């Protein structure tokens, strides 16, 4: 009888803990150094001007109970936020890795959540019907502020435009919402969008699955340019100095002047590109599914080096002054010499390397299969 009572007690405990409401409650301070969205800025920057050593020390590992897309985590006020395809958002302490909160939802979260002004904004894709829910979450009160139902699935990355947010649905609807959850404008592009858009000086640039490059005015949603330049775009746009860089599904990397809509140069990498190009001050770095990484001159697209590392690169690398840090689907992440392409160090992972690495406070955050997040400290 005593044993049965114990079993019932444990059983009830499991049931109750399973029914517990998930929440994230944080008091976050304004953080000018934060990485509030995928690529840090609306134009997508994957460059950190630091010089790192090849000596990395694993300082913590935690689990987000799901799987990552080819996105990244975000960091705000020393807290890491990571979303997974099983519909959860976890937040961890940057220093210790301790979980600070979790939101459990039903659906899939593809887009990296946005964190700004005490708000967490994320989009939840419904599993069996073709709609998503845009959710504004108040971190201070641990409660939902708004929830908007959107037709279509949001499978790419959102943009913070000042205090507003912009997102694209898979079926080609682009919308801009205010902090109060009001729709500012909407535009129907009537084509499938899987590409990560970028924003630079009021111009949103995105590619669609027809191989068209599309430029939209971020102020009013007006279409500025729509031009077919390649094959389907499943990758992402990175903008630097009025030049948008994007790779297509056949492996051609384009540099496009977004003022005129003209292709400045193009380079054929020979295999599918799914990542955003990463830039430093002079060069552009792009990898493909063949496992090759390319370093090209930003101005003329001239090849600096190309090396096949044998894996699969589909998430965007992080660039530092001396190294490229890139996740490999073949269960590792690599430290590569930026100037020569020489592989400096390979770190084995327990699963497929997924997240774009981020660097913050001398730590590199890596994410791989089954929602495992690791923080490595750079040892000098």
């Amino acid at each position, binding site marked *: 009888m005593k044993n049965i009572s114990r079993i019932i007690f444990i059983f009830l405990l499991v049931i109750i803990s399973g029914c517990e409401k998930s929440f994230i409650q944080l008091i976050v301070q304004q953080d000018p150094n934060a990485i509030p969205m995928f690529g840090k800025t609306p134009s997508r920057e994957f460059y950190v001007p630091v010089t790192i050593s090849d000596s990395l020390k694993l300082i913590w590992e935690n689990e987000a109970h*799901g*799987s990552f897309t080819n996105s990244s985590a975000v960091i705000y006020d020393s807290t890491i936020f990571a979303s997974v*395809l*099983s*519909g959860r958002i976890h937040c961890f302490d940057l220093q210790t890795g301790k979980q600070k909160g979790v939101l459990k939802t039903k659906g*899939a979260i593809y887009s990296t959540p946005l964190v700004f002004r005490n708000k967490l904004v994320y989009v939840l894709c419904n*599993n*069996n019907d*073709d709609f998503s829910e845009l959710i504004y979450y108040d971190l201070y009160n641990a409660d939902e502020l708004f929830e908007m139902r959107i037709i279509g*699935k949001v499978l790419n990355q959102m943009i913070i435009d000042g205090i507003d947010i912009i997102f694209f649905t898979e*079926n080609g609807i682009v919308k801009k919402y205010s902090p109060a959850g009001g729709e500012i404008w909407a535009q129907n592009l009537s084509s*499938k969008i899987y590409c990560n858009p970028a924003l630079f000086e009021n111009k949103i640039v995105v590619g669609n*699955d027809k191989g068209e490059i599309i430029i939209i005015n971020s102020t009013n949603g007006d279409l500025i340019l729509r031009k077919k330049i390649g*094959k*389907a775009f*499943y990758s992402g746009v990175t903008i630097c100095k009025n030049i948008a860089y994007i790779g297509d*599904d056949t492996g051609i990397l384009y540099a496009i002047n977004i003022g005129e809509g003209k292709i400045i140069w193009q380079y054929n990498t020979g*295999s*599918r590109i*799914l990542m955003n190009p990463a830039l430093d001050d002079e060069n552009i770095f792009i990898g*493909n*599914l*063949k*496992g090759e990484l390319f370093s090209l001159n930003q101005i003329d697209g001239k090849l600096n080096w190309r090396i096949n590392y*044998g*894996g*699969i690169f*589909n998430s965007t690398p992080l660039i530092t002054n001396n190294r490229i840090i890139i996740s490999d*689907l*073949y*269960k590792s992440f690599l430290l590569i010499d930026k100037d020569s392409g020489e592989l400096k160090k390979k770190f084995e992972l327990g699963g*497929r390397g997924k997240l774009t690495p981020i660097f913050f406070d001398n730590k590199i955050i890596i994410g791989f299969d*089954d929602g495992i997040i690791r923080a490595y400290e750079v040892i000098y």
Partner: protein
Amino acid sequence: MKSKLKYTLLLIFFAASTTCAQFYYFGRNKIQYQKFDWKIIRTEHFNIYYYGEMGEMAEIGAVYAEDMFNELKIKMNSVVTRRVPLIFYNTSNHFQQTNITPGFIPEGVGGFFEFLKGRVVIPSNGSLQDFRHVIRHELVHVFMTNKIYRVLRDHRESTDAMPPLWFVEGLAEYYSTEPDAQAEMVMRDAILNNNFFGLKNIWNIYGSFLMYKEGQSFLEFVEEKYGYEKISLLLENFWMYKSFNDVIEHTLETTIAELDNEWEYHLKKKYFPLYSNRVPQNIFAKQLTNFGFNFSPVLFNQDDKNFIYFIANRTGVSSIYRLDLGENLKSVNDPELILKAEQTQELEAFHLFQSAIDISKDGLLAFGVKSGATDVIHFLSLKTNQIVKTFQDDHLIFLSSPKFSSNGSKIVFQGVDQKGFSDIYTYNLISDSLTRLTNDYYDDRDPVFGPNQDEIIFSSDRSAGKYEKKYNIFSYNLNSNEIKYLTYTNFNNYNPAVSPGKKQLMFTSDADGVRNIWKLDITNLGYSKTLQKVSRFLTSAFDPRFIDDSTIVFSGFEKFAFHLYLMKLENKSDSSADIAMDFSGIEGIWKPKSFDSAGEIKKVEYEKEYSLDFATGVVSTDPVFGTRGGAQIALSDILGDDRYIFMLYNTATVQSDILRSFNIAIQRMNFSKKVNYGYAVFNFSGNRYDITESDEFFYERSFGASTFLSYPLSKFNRLETTITLMNSDREIVEGINSRKSLLLSNSVAYVHDNSLWGPSGPIDGSRWLFLLGYSSDIKYSNINYFSAIADYRNYFRINYTMALALRMSLYYNEGKESRRYFMGGSWDLRGWPRWSIRGEKMWITSLEFRFPLVDQLLIKLPIVDLGFFGIRGAAFFDAGSAWDNEYKTTYGSLGAGIRFNLFNVLVLRYDIGKRIVNNFSDFQTGLFYQFFFGWDF
């Protein structure tokens, strides 16, 4: 049927791992004719298992596999992180011996991917292109299952879902090969003959070759209309919906109905214009057969009558037939069966799609057939209808397409050796000598003697230079050993045949998309350099053979069947279709791609690595025994040769009984050699209910060991023996009435089975078993009896679907405490209560007429259509009896029933009839109705 319920656990134990038995104690044998000395090549992503002399072929396959790995990781944006086991066999004959799958592998299976352990098993058939294609095809399965698993797991969805089979196989074909003449032939035929099934109705052709090709065609259509990238997107989006049709609709933004319309229109637009300059085979040629799959016709004039001999599958087994052409070259009768294969070891199986036959001027019919470990070439005298000579060489595993020289003293044929190389050989019937003409990795096939008997003409993929790897026609000079191109085209040319007047060389070519008949003129100067088109059929023609200089006979594909056709040659061919050949592009030879550096591969010795096959836990509850729980674990090595099964469960109904109710068994079975053997140790204890002993209920603890040995004499016959030593301690009334024994049981049996199965049971061939056994209590002398079983079943085929089945069985136990047999119920003596007739001696006979009732039943429901196939009927008569010491009465029944095959897993049976009662003198009043499941006897 045997009254050994006490040993049920042991029987289940053996049954779970006995590969050869299809059902119960019958079943054909999967024979390991030789022990393979397995070796391993380790590459970056694969463990390649090979044996014997096929190291070179294995290395070539390893390169193909690595190339495909790198292709698929890009196409599917996915990577398989484990090392994939690829198991290569040098021919399909050896492949059919694999223990990786317990079932029999039918002729024509090109390879398979085994989902349980992710093993890929592939034979080489001598063609590197086919080898490459199958490796690629199976690796698509590996990547696709990995991708689907990852997508579902990433979204925390259940990972047991898979796309429908048409997509699985269509994707494998789409990613592994280019559209070829075979795919074109099948799709043209489907569209032009109204045999096309869209996505909505594709379940109608589930598992068929047409389904593979429709799947491939659909994906080609998606690529053309919606973009190449949408194919991989279908996999990425797989998690989104439960129904794969919904995934398609979401990804392509259209409905299935609209897609079907668009796809069908696309194909019709492509194929309907062909009618303007091409003809169906039965318009331009005379169709000689109207049923089955008919191949390789060859003319023979016997007693001034023209006969066509050919190989065909018209009854479910491949055989040689003869067709009387009559005086006007019109078939006058149905084909006559000459030689039936697949019933004896001498004629185990024809390679229907790969081989051809020939007849010498003296009336000797040569044909290749599988016979035991290798193929043989038999020579059948058409005068006596007897096989008068047989050629076999241990080094040649596969033999195909023998063709006679003009004087009949030699044959030339294609053979695949231990290395997996397909080459040309001649065999002198008089001197009994074999000569190898070619020896390389090129696929040399379809050889014939040329107009000059010093010349062999054959088809080969040895074409080099501009048209590298294309099958062209070559000649081999027997004096100089020189090989020359006779054709040099960017097409695939096969089946050369020289006209009786030696003025024409006929062959098939896929120059216009499918295989049509073309020719080269032969003059004093040699072979013409212009291909002339002979036929302009919509679908493919195969194996053209001359009747005379102006008439040919061939096998053609139309309406998803292969028939024989007779065609008059036109005096003047259409010169606008002529193709002038330019031989200037020939350059050197081609070599298969190899690894860039030796460091990319590592050769290691094979060592057995055991891994889990399955682990199951079971908890069951019933009113008699209460709740029981247990587990079973099975392990085997990577090649499936050696298996271990561990079983543990407890039958205690109260806590105090736990310790004395453990049941444990460990068994090992080994299939690596011709002799299969196994042994087990066991401890079974708990409450038992024995139906054979007047419904006794008792506690028993038995422990002991058992061995099993099976020696296959051929695919159809085997000797079996079992020895069991068991200590039994039985409490019939607890603490009062007990029986102890140390039982030694042994039996030896001869088993035969060459039956052919229809939807509900055997319809052709025979099955029989003779068993002698002896059981003795060697310690207490409580038990001592012998057993004899004679079970004979014969199936008389009436036509393709109807058969008369006969069973005569006698079961006999005699001695102290001999076990009782039992019968009654749907499986044996129908109409009588199940297992109600019991005795130490028993006989039963049955006569059953099996016939088709409904071939296909379609039920259209508002949401989904349901289709049921192979509903069969039976009219039966049973008689039998069982007794202990004195014969008492004879039981019987007669009636009719219906059998319903449920997904080839289960047959539901419903019988109505009358019992014959009162010692076989009266019918029962009214009728009996009996519903159960199980296959026909």
